C-alpha cells in the first residue's frame, strides 16, 4: 500500500509542479512530505514559490495566489485519477481579470476530458464556455434559460432537441 501511495504521490507532485508553472508562468510549486520521503508519517505539505519570489508555505500567500495553487492541485489530481464531472462555484472570486481569463482557459483545456459545470460572476469566464445557463429571479422564483455559446440567442430546449 505504501509503494502504491508513493508512486501515485510522485506522479501527482510532478504534475502539480507542471500545472502551477503553466498557470502562473514562472511560479513553482512543490508537494512534499512533512517527513522527508515518508508521506505516511505526517502527511504532505504544499509549498509555493510564486513567480520570482522565495519559497513560502501556503499560508503566506495572497488570496489570488492561494486560489491558483488550489486549482493547480485539482488539475494535477485530475490528471492522475480523472473524474468524469466537475462542479465549481465561483472559483475565480479572488482572481484579477487576467487570471480569470487564464483559469477559464485551463478549465476549457481540462474540459476535453471531463464535463465542467462552472458558476461565475466574471465576464471573462463566460467567454470560454461552450454552453451557458442564465438564471434570473422574479417574485422570489428562479428561472433558467440554456443557451449555446456558438449560437448566441438560440436557446437550448431539451424537448426541442437542438443542438444536443
Amino acid at each position, binding site marked *: 500500500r505504501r509503494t502504491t501511495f508513493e508512486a501515485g504521490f510522485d506522479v501527482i507532485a510532478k504534475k502539480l509542479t507542471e500545472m502551477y508553472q503553466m498557470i502562473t508562468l514562472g511560479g513553482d510549486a512543490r508537494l512534499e512530505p512533512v517527513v522527508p520521503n515518508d508521506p505516511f508519517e505526517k502527511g504532505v505539505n504544499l509549498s509555493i514559490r510564486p513567480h520570482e519570489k522565495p519559497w513560502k508555505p*501556503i499560508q503566506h500567500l495572497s488570496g489570488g495566489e492561494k486560489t491558483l495553487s488550489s486549482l493547480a492541485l485539482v488539475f494535477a489530481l485530475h490528471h492522475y485519477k480523472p473524474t468524469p*464531472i466537475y462542479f465549481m462555484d465561483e472559483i475565480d472570486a479572488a482572481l484579477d481579470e487576467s487570471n480569470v481569463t487564464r483559469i477559464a482557459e485551463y478549465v476549457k483545456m481540462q474540459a476535453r476530458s471531463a*464535463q465542467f459545470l462552472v458558476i461565475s460572476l466574471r465576464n471573462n469566464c463566460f467567454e*470560454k464556455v461552450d454552453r451557458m445557463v442564465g438564471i434570473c429571479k422574479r417574485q422570489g422564483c428562479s428561472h*433558467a434559460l440554456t443557451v449555446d455559446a456558438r449560437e448566441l440567442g438560440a436557446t437550448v430546449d431539451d424537448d426541442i432537441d437542438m443542438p*444536443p
Partner: protein
Amino acid sequence: LMIRKVTLENFKSYSGKKILGTFSHRMNGILGPNGSGKSNVLDAFLFVFAKKARKIRMNRVAELVHHSSSSQPDSAKVTVDFQEIVDMPDDDPVGYRVVEGSEFRISRRAGKDNSSTYYINDRQATMANVTHALRQHGIDLTHNRFLILQGEVEQIAAMKPKAPNDHDEGFL
C-alpha cells in the same frame, strides 16, 4: 459519462418544474445576479447525490422545498439525466456520440415532513443503490475533489498535512 440535463421541481428557489440543459459535454457556465439561484443548482446535484442537508446549506431536508408567497408545495424533486458518450473528432458538429442505451436517470424527492425517496430510472431505490450506481459510472461520492463549493477554493491547497485525509491520501 456526462450530465445531459437536470430537472428541478419546487427545489429551493425554483418553483414548479424547471429544466436546465441540454448541457455541453465540455464546459458549461452558469451565470446570473446575486441571489438568483446559481448555487442552488449545485445544491440540486448534491441533493440527488445523497449528500446531507447540512452540506446543502440547510439544516433539514424540509427546508429544500420551495416556499414563497405565491407557492407552498409539499415536496421537492430533482432529476438528473446521465448518458455515456464517446468523443468524436473535432470536425464533428456535435463532438460526441451517445453510447446506445447508456442513458439513465437518478431522482430524489424530499417532503416537508423531512422524508426522502430515491429513484433510478423512475423506479424507487435506496440511497445505497444510488451511490453504488454512481460509483459504477465513475462518480465516487466518498471524496469531494470534483466539487468546489462557493468560498472553498482557497482552502484546498491550504489543507493541513495529515488530516483531513481526503486531500491526497484518502483517494490514492
